[in-house]
């Protein structure tokens, strides 16, 4: 997740280059490119601090982080800081530039920016990150502006050459055309002229109705190599002379290494070295098999430390206790106490959500070559500059001596916003002569993840005689990710991530008297981090389950009840109505089947989902169909939006049905896909995604599909069985006893 969005929750449309805080001149520079051609250097806002930093940036210096190079061959290269992890960024972002620059998408090549401290991670930006459904949102205006600037200048250069009025010329498919004379000049022939021109004061962006590329389902650019085995992920890196290592960290959180007998391991053919860290052991070998065998042959003594007896039950007990205390007030509208006192009915419910692992299909892998004079790192990371910083810290080398080669990510889901693994890989590599690729086993991945926090929430509402809410109180207890991940964002006891969808932005409903509180309660020892859907996966489940409970208490249809509360939010109402209509809401279903709905406004996008489930007498749940309506503003690539919704729904469904990380004796009890279960193809529902046409600024699409799913599912289970699921994952034993 991009930090900007997480912290101030101001949507990117209001935080653009044209908001006055940043002039175009400081936003963009045009120079001759080394080796010929044209180079546009500009700034892509990416971080939460960009808003507050904007003033400083303007006054201070021009520090571009994105570059467009147009060569004498007319080919366009975009160097950008976002990474591809399946979300289609490598296609959507070039689309923005191609649209305004009037070139074919196929003529735009993309290079991932290396974490060059001087360019991409200067002191203002601090963190180079991809996530939070923010890439397209952040790039929307600046990239089009950069493209339009270049296009305008190319047209000017051609007009100058022909000595005609620029307004009589236009750009089309990589050429400037003077329509009346039929003369044409390719961009490649103009770039050297453009480099000498001043940047125009006014650049016109194309009107949405003139878009020819944006809004079309352009083909993904990164996929051909992903169907023939050529695509290189970080686990695929091969460096001459490279050894392969695998590692075991202390199974107990916070434990240390006490001693190792490596006699047997070193006798295994192919094993070269056993490396000891403070809290882990690594075996360095010719190949992964020898490394794994070597690891298994080690006799390791751990000092299990303070968490040796930690259990999930204890963590949950602590959260339960925390929930009894008033929290830090995150939002206070009206007078909840008074409204509650005057309510005709009071409804209360507790909700719980488990620790979750990310389980990206590509296990962590990082290749490191530490030398006296520098260090190369090959890794797939969502936070390249942080990766570089940790390498510098571990090696003691200056940043400029560290080169991070970013690789394709075999899934991110928030896990690759962390650098724990990179730190560890470099600690290992420091003790190894030559390059070494450190690969985690799946067991290590599941048991040493940085987990989605356990949340415990208490909801209380007062309803009027008509069953409509007059008072709304939401208290949430759980750990703060920002307090660890980026402490400045944790302000006055509040974590913006914990609040999204609960307090800021609040639920989209008319809730006149509202109190939202947060109690920070950190689980001992267990690291917590971002997980696809982030804060809203938690809040939307709680809010949308509770709204459903209120509708039930009011004896009203869940869709009708929500619609009645969405008068002030037409976009939310529209997606709700679209999803309900397409799902056939209200049409009768056989016994044991049910439909459930959820509505949300998070990540700048409006999403409604209707899930249809079948629950058998044994409590087994099958989700047969999910209908999803999305209003994410201007759609850059509709097919990518649909794909992200489909993926988000599957991701949310796997978690809601199966996923739970539990702790016993300080250890994670799950280890691999046999016990940390994934959704399989024969369990996947049919999914329909409907997009609402909109001219609003683009919203995020990577996360919302996930956050909307769980409540739609559990509300459907309620409709099918009468059993309200207030704790995830769905407890199928509990459903067995439900009356069907």
């Amino acid at each position, binding site marked *: 997740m991009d930090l900007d969005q997480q912290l101030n929750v101001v949507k990117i449309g209001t935080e653009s280059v044209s908001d006055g805080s940043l002039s175009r001149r400081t936003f963009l520079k045009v120079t001759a490119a080394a080796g010929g051609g044209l180079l546009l250097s500009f700034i892509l806002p990416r971080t939460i601090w960009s808003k507050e930093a904007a003033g400083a940036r303007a006054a201070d210096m021009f520090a571009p982080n994105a570059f467009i190079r147009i060569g004498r061959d007319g080919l366009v290269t975009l160097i950008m800081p976002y990474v591809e992890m399946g979300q289609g960024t490598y296609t959507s972002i070039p689309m923005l530039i191609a649209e305004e620059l009037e070139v074919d998408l196929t003529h735009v090549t993309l290079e991932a920016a290396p974490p060059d401290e001087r360019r991409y991670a200067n002191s203002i930006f601090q963190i180079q990150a991809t996530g939070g459904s923010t890439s397209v949102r952040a790039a929307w205006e600046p990239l089009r502006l950069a493209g339009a600037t270049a296009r305008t200048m190319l047209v000017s250069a051609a007009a100058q050459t022909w000595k005609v009025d620029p307004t009589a010329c236009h750009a089309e498919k990589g050429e400037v055309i003077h329509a009346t004379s039929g003369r044409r000049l390719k961009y490649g022939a103009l770039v050297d002229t453009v480099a000498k021109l001043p940047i125009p004061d006014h650049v016109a962006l194309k009107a949405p109705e003139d878009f020819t590329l944006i809004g079309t389902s352009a083909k993904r650019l990164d996929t051909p190599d992903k169907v023939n085995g050529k695509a290189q992920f970080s686990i695929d890196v091969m460096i001459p002379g490279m050894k392969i290592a695998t590692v075991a960290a202390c199974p107990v959180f916070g434990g240390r290494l006490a001693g190792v007998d490596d006699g047997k391991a070193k006798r295994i053919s192919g094993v070269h070295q056993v490396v000891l860290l403070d809290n882990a052991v690594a075996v360095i070998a010719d190949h992964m098999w020898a490394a794994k065998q070597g690891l*298994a042959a080690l006799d390791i003594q751990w000092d299990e430390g303070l968490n040796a007896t930690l259990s999930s039950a204890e963590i949950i007990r602590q959260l339960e206790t925390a929930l009894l205390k008033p929290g830090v007030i995150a939002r206070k509208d009206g007078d909840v106490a008074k409204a509650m006192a005057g309510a005709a009915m009071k409804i209360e419910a507790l909700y719980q959500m488990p620790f979750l692992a990310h389980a990206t299909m590509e296990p962590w892998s990082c290749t490191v070559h530490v030398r006296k004079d520098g260090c190369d790192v090959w890794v797939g990371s969502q936070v390249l500059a942080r990766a570089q910083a940790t390498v510098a810290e571990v090696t003691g080398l200056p940043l400029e001596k560290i080169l991070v080669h970013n690789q394709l990510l075999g899934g991110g889901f928030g896990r690759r916003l962390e650098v724990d693994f990179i730190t560890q890989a470099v600690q290992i590599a420091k003790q190894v002569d030559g390059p070494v690729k450190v690969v985690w086993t799946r067991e290590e991945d599941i048991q040493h993840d940085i987990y989605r926090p356990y949340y415990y929430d208490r909801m209380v509402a007062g309803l009027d005689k008509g069953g409509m809410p007059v008072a709304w109180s939401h208290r949430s207890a759980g750990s703060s990710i920002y307090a660890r991940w980026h402490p400045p964002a944790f302000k006055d006891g509040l974590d913006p991530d914990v609040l999204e969808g609960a307090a800021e932005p609040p639920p989209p409903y008319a809730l006149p008297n509202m109190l939202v509180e947060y109690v920070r309660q950190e689980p001992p020892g267990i690291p917590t981090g971002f997980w696809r859907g982030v804060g809203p996966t938690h809040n939307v489940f709680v809010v949308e389950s509770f709204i459903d409970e209120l509708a039930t208490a009011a004896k009203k249809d869940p869709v009708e009840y929500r619609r009645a509360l969405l008068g002030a939010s037409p976009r939310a109402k529209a997606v709700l109505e679209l999803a309900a209509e397409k799902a056939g809401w209200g049409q009768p279903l056989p016994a044991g089947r049910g439909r459930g709905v959820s509505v949300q406004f998070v990540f700048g996008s409006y999403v409604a989902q209707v899930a249809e489930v079948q629950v058998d007498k*044994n409590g*087994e749940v099958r989700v047969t169909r999910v209908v999803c309506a999305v209003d994410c503003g201007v759609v850059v690539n509709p097919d990518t939006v649909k794909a992200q919704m489909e993926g988000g729904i599957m991701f949310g469904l796997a978690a809601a049905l199966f996923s739970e990380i539990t702790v016993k004796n300080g250890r994670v009890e799950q280890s691999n896909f*046999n016990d940390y279960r994934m959704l399989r193809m*024969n369990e996947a529902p049919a999914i329909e995604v409907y997009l609402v046409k909109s001219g609003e600024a683009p919203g995020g699409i990577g996360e919302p599909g996930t956050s909307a799913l769980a409540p739609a599912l559990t509300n459907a289970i309620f409709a099918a069985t009468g059993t309200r699921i207030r704790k995830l994952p769905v407890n*199928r*034993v509990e459903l067995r006893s439900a009356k069907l």
Partner: protein
Amino acid sequence: MKRSGYTNLFVLLMAIIIGDVNGCIFHPHGPMDFAGGTQVVLADYQGSDPTGAPPEVAGAGLVARGEYLARAADCIGCHTTPLGKQFAGGLAFKLPVGTLYSTNITPDKETGIGEWTDNEFVTAMHDGVGRNGTRLYPAFPYSAYTLLTRNDVLAIKAYLFSLKPVHAMPPENDMSFPFNQRYLMRFWNALYNPAQRYQPNIDRAPTWNRGAYLTEALGHCGECHTPRTLLQGLDANKKFEGAMIEGWKAYNMTSDQRSGIGNWSDEQLENYLSTGHAEGRSTAAGPMSLVLNNSLRFLTKDDIRAMAEYLKTVPPLHNQADLAVAQKRVSATPSEARARSPRGPSPNDEDLGLRVFEGACASCHDWDGSGVHSPYADLTGNRTVNDPSGVNMTQVILQGASLQTRQGEMFMPAFGTGYSNTEISAVVNYVTGLFGVSPSTMTPDQVAEQRKKK
């Protein structure tokens, strides 16, 4: 609990009275009595010595011989917890009458056996009497170890004393009355402890006698494979007929052709005993896989052969529950296999077993049950697959399995955490129906019960 406590007390008292009388008149059955012939004391035996370590390690010194014997006796299996130090004890034995914990048998002077004299150690192994005269519970199989020669017992002691002492006190036993009255074990011993050394049978081959010594004295196979009486003694009339252990079925290993191992070739039996796998018969899992990992795989080929020879002479006992196995392979393609899929008991979950199988099982076991990567995954002819109770199938799915072999670890992952009782019962019934002689009728509630027996 109270009522059953009184019932137990009554049974025990009755048994003590009868048993005591019996004990005066009859001696407990010897485990090899079935073989007939003449048994003589070892000193009088003319054949090669059936006791001690095999020739391969005979010259290797006392500690090495002790190590071999300790492995054959599988001391480590009971005296080590999954996360604990070897031989440091603390493993819980959940019995109907309470919970026992194995002791620390490392040479630690305070918490282990570091201060034990030779005689004290021998008395414990032969008579079930610990230091200071404490009666030991027969969960410690001294009624088998009593057959060991004093030399072998002392070799085991020498090996244990060569280990690094571990300071670890196992938890206190938690036995209900009257079973917490250790003196009562005297009566139990009178009933069930033959309390004599191994006596070779001069009418049998020396290899048979070696097999008997390995099976009965060291291996104490009957502790799991022979049903118990109300007093938890081995029922001599049901020798090796099969019994339940920790929720698993220890299968009939008499020479019965249908229920036991009577139809197994020598090669199959020897392979099973040495590797945990007999092609077309069985792959060890559960407690038996631990026996393989800790004990049997370390035995010499001749010793394994001797055990097989001995086992084949154990009189057949037929039990209805264990039928003949089906040597069946269904068709090789998924769609054909699916067409033959047995349907579950309820229309709602009829496809559930298939769904679980195609997601989690088919990758290794294949649609014809033959095992894709290894014969260890071959379901054809497998006793577990052909057991209509589905008990072991349920356990292996819940807990997984792991065998250490010369080719590395052969494993099946545990699916208990990831899958519901309903899913597990469905896939058990599906697999027994597809690859076995008849489908099991495991229910979700039964799976829930099986989970508790871990």
